[in-house]
């Protein structure tokens, strides 16, 4: 558990035991204790994801794949029709309480899917967690805290914890024979958690991180940092950026002539969904992630075909996370016969959920409600992710601070 969120979230345990009552009082008698039951009404899926701004691609990928998973079944969730209520999160923490309350209190959704931003995840978890609310499925935000100190009965994640894709990356880097490395990431929660994980794995395996560069978020002017890297000449560089920042970093890295001299590693987001935009600059970058496009299992092949057919492009890891969010819900709802009001049974069904045939391969839910999943080693070749092997099999997040784990 990195130190940055300790103060913010450590009060959580107290909250769970004592303040549940407070939360319940706060909403008074205005909230119905249970939700619409029955085969006739629609299942209401509230989605809080970014649809505007830099991260809109993530929101769209997740939402598209979620809907696709429902369609790949019979278009229903356990026989009930589905109604989607999406809200643009705008990646704004200040708006998060209101947006969450809208989905929970006004729209009375059965399931709450979101978000991308870990700060928003914390808000949602806080509002949803302590009470008999809808079940929350996190299809991206990797903050360790969500399934760490903030973990709760009704919060599940179908994506990853920041620790998961980063930790094996550090080991891979050491296994490739590198002795010294520089870590570089944006100075925000996800970046710092991933760098911590990668660094600790690298150093556990005999490497040494000689410098830890933190770039102000969301600054994309990397030249100064690249010159530092060039001057320090580490054996390897471990980087986390995503989206536009990932494109720019990888291209700048190559343009500065560093690519062929100092190999680049990182959590898979460095090249995921953006390798086309990165072009030749991404060739040869090794990353670790819980998905690879060329996984040969039949579920993945079917998913990719269907996604291409529906949206005219190939899915990425975010899509897979959205796909599995839907799968988690469908699976549990089927087990309880479509009764979305049976929260306790739904939670039981989700807690023990096993997915032998996800596009990402087999995974199951940990006690802290985070996927236990393979982390794959991939390399960009010919503009595509090439699967090199499994970097860590059935990797489980340590879930530090979670009472359920």
């Amino acid at each position, binding site marked *: 558990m990195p130190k940055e969120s300790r103060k913010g979230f450590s*009060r959580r345990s107290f909250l769970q035991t004592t303040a549940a009552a407070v939360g319940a009082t706060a909403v008074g008698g205005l909230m119905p204790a249970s939700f619409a039951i029955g085969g006739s009404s629609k299942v209401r899926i509230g989605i809080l994801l970014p649809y505007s701004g830099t991260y809109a691609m993530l929101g769209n990928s997740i939402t598209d794949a979620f809907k696709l998973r429902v369609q790949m079944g019979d278009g229903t969730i356990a026989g009930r029709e589905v109604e989607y209520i999406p809200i643009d999160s705008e990646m704004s*923490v200040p708006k998060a309480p209101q947006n969450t309350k*809208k989905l929970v*209190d006004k729209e009375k959704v059965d399931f709450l899917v979101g978000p991308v931003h*870990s700060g928003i995840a*914390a808000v949602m978890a806080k509002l949803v967690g302590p009470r008999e609310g809808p079940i929350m499925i996190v299809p991206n935000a990797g903050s360790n805290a969500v399934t760490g100190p903030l973990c709760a009965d009704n919060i599940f994640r179908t994506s990853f914890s920041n620790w998961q894709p980063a930790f094996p990356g550090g080991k891979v880097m050491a296994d490739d024979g590198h002795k010294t490395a520089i870590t570089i990431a944006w100075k925000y929660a996800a970046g710092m958690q991933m760098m911590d994980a990668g660094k600790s794995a690298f150093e556990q395996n005999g490497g040494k991180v000689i410098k830890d560069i933190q770039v102000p978020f969301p600054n994309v002017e990397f030249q100064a940092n690249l010159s530092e890297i060039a001057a320090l000449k580490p054996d390897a560089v471990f980087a986390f950026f995503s989206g536009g920042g990932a494109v720019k970093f990888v291209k700048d890295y190559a343009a500065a002539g560093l690519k062929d001299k100092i190999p680049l590693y990182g959590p898979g987001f460095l090249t995921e969904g953006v390798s086309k935009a990165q072009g030749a600059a991404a060739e040869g970058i090794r990353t670790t992630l819980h998905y690879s496009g060329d996984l040969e299992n039949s579920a993945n092949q079917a998913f990719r075909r269907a996604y291409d057919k529906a949206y005219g492009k190939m899915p990425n890891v975010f899509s897979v996370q959205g796909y599995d969010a839907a799968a988690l819900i469908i699976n549990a709802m089927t087990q309880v016969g479509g009764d979305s009001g049976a929260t306790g049974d739904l939670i039981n069904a989700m807690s023990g959920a096993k997915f032998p045939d996800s596009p990402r391969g087999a995974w199951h839910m940990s006690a802290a409600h985070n996927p236990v999943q393979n982390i794959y080693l991939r390399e960009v070749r010919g503009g595509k992710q090439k699967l090199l092997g499994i970097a860590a099999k059935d990797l489980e997040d340590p879930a530090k601070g979670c009472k359920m784990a």
Partner: protein
Amino acid sequence: MNTRASRLIRYFLISNLLLLVAFPWVGEHFYVGLVMNMMIFGILAMSLDLLIGYTGLVSLGHAAYYGLAGYLLAIISPESEAVSIWLALPFCILGTALAALIIGWFSVRTSGIYFIMITLAFAQMLFYYFNENTDLGGSDGIFIFFKPSVTLGSITLLDLDNHIVFYYFILVCMLLVYFLLRMLLASPFGQVIQGIRANENRTRALGYPTFYYKLVSFVIAGSIGGLAGFLEGMHGGIVSPGHLGWHESGLILMIVILGGMGTLYGPIMGAFAMIFLQDWFQEITVHWMLLMGVFVIAVVLFLPRGIAGLIEDLAAKLDKSVTDSNRPATQKNGESGDG
């Protein structure tokens, strides 16, 4: 504007207030919460109106005080229990007042767009300070788990965890701020800052050290912004760097212009309109920003004095038509404005 038209506006405002008072008993739970947001932004917008509409200082860093107060509340709130409001409120407001004093000391020397930019610069520095301060939650922000308690001795005066009590608490704060600002504007101090807005050089030549008057106005506006941030910290339960970002500062500025600057009640209405439309447009279409953009441009082009200007025009028209039909002679102009 004549007194009858301004009386009409007063009736209109009072009837709106009555609606606000009644709302928690009829409104949906979610919308009651949304109205709380609107009122908090109303307070924030009024405080900025003191600067823009009355002192002539356009700040693009006003969210700094809003966010800062939230952080102060998070800092002073103990780990596992509610902090007393008698401690928390003065702490937050004095803290933001101090910040406004320091920032204002350097900022109010400049004017025009330079003032806009230097306030932005200070707010951005605060933004990055909190964004990178991992002890305070970094980019994710930090929770405020418990609303401060309002107790006297061992007696609980107000249970702010009660949705409805908290609603009225915010409403009373908003009204207090409104009347406090009205009082300020009517006082000798208020006369001077309005003079500064109209013609700063002349005001100085008349014998006022305008720097100090602007500074005091800046500090008062910052403190009231801090009150809004304090309330939002209680309401939202979280404060994040996003609360002090330039997007938030820009939003407040838009609210003030949209509502009609230099009217105090206009910015409140601007806050209600802006937040309501954001909520509503999102329900209509995924391309809600397009609607918002068109709306904003339409306001600029067709409502030059904002919502308050529209209300004033309507009141004047209504007054005229009533007068024309009921009385042969139009009423004589009395003293202008609504004290």
